[in-house]
């Protein structure tokens, strides 16, 4: 739209300027042509005047005239007219020569009697001549279908006794000749009537005459007989005649033809430009929207969790860059998703979540947690009797049970160490009853082990026997390792203590499958059946610690733990 309106405005401006220019140019041409025409006529008239001026003071002519006038008979008059014809022949340019008295009366004329009577030259022309230093005056009179530029000069003998009137024709031949030279149609308008004009204007005479009353000097568009003309009416010089104008016209069609051709070319060019820009606009828009739609679809897939979404990269521009950035983003998301899956498999979901959401920074904090340490009895012996494949398979089945029990109680498995499992309660997710949870988890592990052993018994496999140590206290929790590779874990005496307490379950004197520290017992919030095992020496501890046994339900109590 902007382009279209800009083009339209430009076109209109150009058209207006061109029209104005054309008018200005025509006006200048007409003024120039008129100037030339008047100059030519003036020169011709001056030439004619020089010839007449010689006649004006010609003694022989005056003498002849006097003799014939004094004779005043028919022969004398005929002779006088013959003499005038003779002089007209000498001068050449004159259309007629007439002798008039001071009061305008015709004495002799080379025109026919009829024409002579029609062409009235009154005494006022003589008066005008008398007022001038050169005793000469000019006027323009209509004679039939011609205009006559009429000049009067005295016949000096030596006073101006009679006057010589000489005519110069402003006729169709002159108009045609000048029209040919100037390229304009020409009309001579006299007293509001078109007397002489070039053939093209012939039928438009009345219209032209009525228009000639418009003040001259204005460029007019005249509709003459169905044709438009552009023209200017210029008056003859005042010392010729003030009732006569020259109208110079040119056919508007012919004059404006180059402009209209230009106009057509401009219209076609504008139309082509609009079409091309329209098509280009559509193409550009489609080039933009298509990748955008693809990107939007891709983003939608990502939002729905489908990280496999990819968009085609078709261009090297900003959209192409955006598409490849999107693809890189999708790849990144996909890799992260896979990493999270893997993480979830290798660490507990809580730790994985904590790792994903917290800043992966090395460092830690002191937390009050409960550590659970479980270990398989007679595992070394057991492992020697199994193939590696069967070993891992059976271990995995065992660990699955243990892990399930830990997680069910709200703990996280920190790590698997050979046949041992280390679990943490109270970190990374802080809970107040971490001791209770750990004790419950221990009982659940024993229960799960019993169930697993029942299945193993059916398969002819030896049962697993698990010992569990539980300790509670302050530890340092956090990401431990190098910048590239680290684990969320807990470090502290309580970890070692849990491991020691687990070892104590091997001592038959305690007859306990699960031993917890006195701190754990103190941290318990709920009621649990604990059996006081008294104080005992713990390796690595200077003082004896009081420990407690967490016994499973009564049914299991009768069974002795070997070793």
């Amino acid at each position, binding site marked *: 739209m902007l382009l279209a309106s800009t083009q339209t405005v430009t076109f209109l401006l150009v058209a207006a300027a061109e029209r104005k220019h054309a008018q200005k140019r025509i006006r200048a041409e007409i003024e120039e042509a008129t100037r030339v025409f008047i100059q030519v006529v003036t020169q011709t008239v001056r030439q004619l005047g020089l010839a007449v001026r010689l006649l004006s003071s010609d003694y022989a002519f005056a003498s002849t005239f006097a003799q014939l006038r*004094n004779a005043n008979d028919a022969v004398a008059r005929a002779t006088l007219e013959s003499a005038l014809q003779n002089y007209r022949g000498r001068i050449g340019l004159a259309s007629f020569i007439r002798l008039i008295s001071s009061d305008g009366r015709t004495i002799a004329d080379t025109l026919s009697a009829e024409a002579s009577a029609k062409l009235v030259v009154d005494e006022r022309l003589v008066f005008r001549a008398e007022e001038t230093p050169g005793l000469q005056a000019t006027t323009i009179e209509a004679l039939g279908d011609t205009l006559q530029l009429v000049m009067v000069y005295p016949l000096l003998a030596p006073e101006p006794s009679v006057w010589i009137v000489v005519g110069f024709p402003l006729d169709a031949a002159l108009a045609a000749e000048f029209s040919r030279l100037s390229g304009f149609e020409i009309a001579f308008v006299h007293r509001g009537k078109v007397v002489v004009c070039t053939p093209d204007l012939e039928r438009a005479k009345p219209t032209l005459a009525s228009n000639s009353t418009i003040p001259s000097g204005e460029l007019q568009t005249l509709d003459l007989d169905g044709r438009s003309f552009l023209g200017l009416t210029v008056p003859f010089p005042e010392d010729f005649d003030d009732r006569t104008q020259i109208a110079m016209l040119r056919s508007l069609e012919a004059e404006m033809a180059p402009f209209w051709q230009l106009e057509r070319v401009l219209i076609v060019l504008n139309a082509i430009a609009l079409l091309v820009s329209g098509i280009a606009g559509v193409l550009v828009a489609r080039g933009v929207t298509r990748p955008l739609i693809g990107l939007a679809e891709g983003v939608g897939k990502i939002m729905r969790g489908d990280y496999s979404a990819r968009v085609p990269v078709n261009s090297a521009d900003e959209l192409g860059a955006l598409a490849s950035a999107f693809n890189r983003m999708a790849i990144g998301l996909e890799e992260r998703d896979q990493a999270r899956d893997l993480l979830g498999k290798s660490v507990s979901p809580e730790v994985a979540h904590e790792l994903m959401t917290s800043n992966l920074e090395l460092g830690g904090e002191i937390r009050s947690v409960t550590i659970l340490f479980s270990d398989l009895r007679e595992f070394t012996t057991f492992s020697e009797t199994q193939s590696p494949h069967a070993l891992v398979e059976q271990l995995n089945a065992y660990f699955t049970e243990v892990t399930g029990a830990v997680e069910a109680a709200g703990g996280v498995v920190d790590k698997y160490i050979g046949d041992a499992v280390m679990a943490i309660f109270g970190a990374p997710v802080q809970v107040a009853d971490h001791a209770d949870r750990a004790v419950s988890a221990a009982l659940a592990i024993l229960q799960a082990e019993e169930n697993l052993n029942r299945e193993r018994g059916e398969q002819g496999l030896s049962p697993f026997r698990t010992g569990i140590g539980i300790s509670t206290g302050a530890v340092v929790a956090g990401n431990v390792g190098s910048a590239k590779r680290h684990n969320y874990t807990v470090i502290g005496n309580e970890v070692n203590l849990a491991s020691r307490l687990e070892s104590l379950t091997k001592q038959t004197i305690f007859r306990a499958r699960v031993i917890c520290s006195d701190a754990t017992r103190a941290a318990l919030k709920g009621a649990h059946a604990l059996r006081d095992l008294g104080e005992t020496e713990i390796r690595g501890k200077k003082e004896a610690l009081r420990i407690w046994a967490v016994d499973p339900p009564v049914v299991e109590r009768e069974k002795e733990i070997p070793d």
Partner: protein
Amino acid sequence: MKITLPRLVYASNSRQGLGGPSHLLSCQPFAWLMVICFLGAFPAAGSELQVLVKDQSGRPVESAIVWAQTGGKTSLPPLQTQIIQKNRQFLPAVTVVPVGSAVRFPNQDNVQHHVYSFSFAKTFDIPLYIGESPQTIQFDRPGIVTLGCNIHDWMAAYVVVLDTGVFAQTDAKGIASLRNLPGGPVIVCAWYPRLRGEPVKSQIEPGQSFAELTLTLRPAFRRTPPDDRGGYR
């Protein structure tokens, strides 16, 4: 009996000639030429008439010639006089003579002149001559005779040929006094060099002592010798 008749001489000693100012005669000195006549030939019973001559715009015309037509009854005897050509001008510019007078045209210049007239009252020409006038021209018909020179276009002079002795010249106020008018109605005429057409006439009734005549004058035009403009042009 002899009377003294004034003969008007319009001196034209300057190059301005008739191309001079519009009131040509008023600024030109003129002299009276004494002519011997016989007054006793006319009845002395006439009265006096004052004639005011004006132009078409009402201004008085000085040095106009005014006369009364008397049908030849008061005609003065012819005389002999001359109009000379000097410095390529006629001298005097205006000469009033009784009908039948003879005029010579001595050429005092060192170039030839060709004096002519195409006037109806007297048409003549004296082809190229120098010194004494080869011809004496007799003006035997009353009227205004305009003289020219075929060699010099600007030379012009007038001979007013009258068949009456009752004539006068207007003064600066445009007034001329005609004396010795005959009894009965009389035609009074006036003429001036720039008059358009024939002399103006007016009928005067007996006992009328004042008359007014209007002359339609054409503008004066300057006709100067070509060398007055400084040679080639």
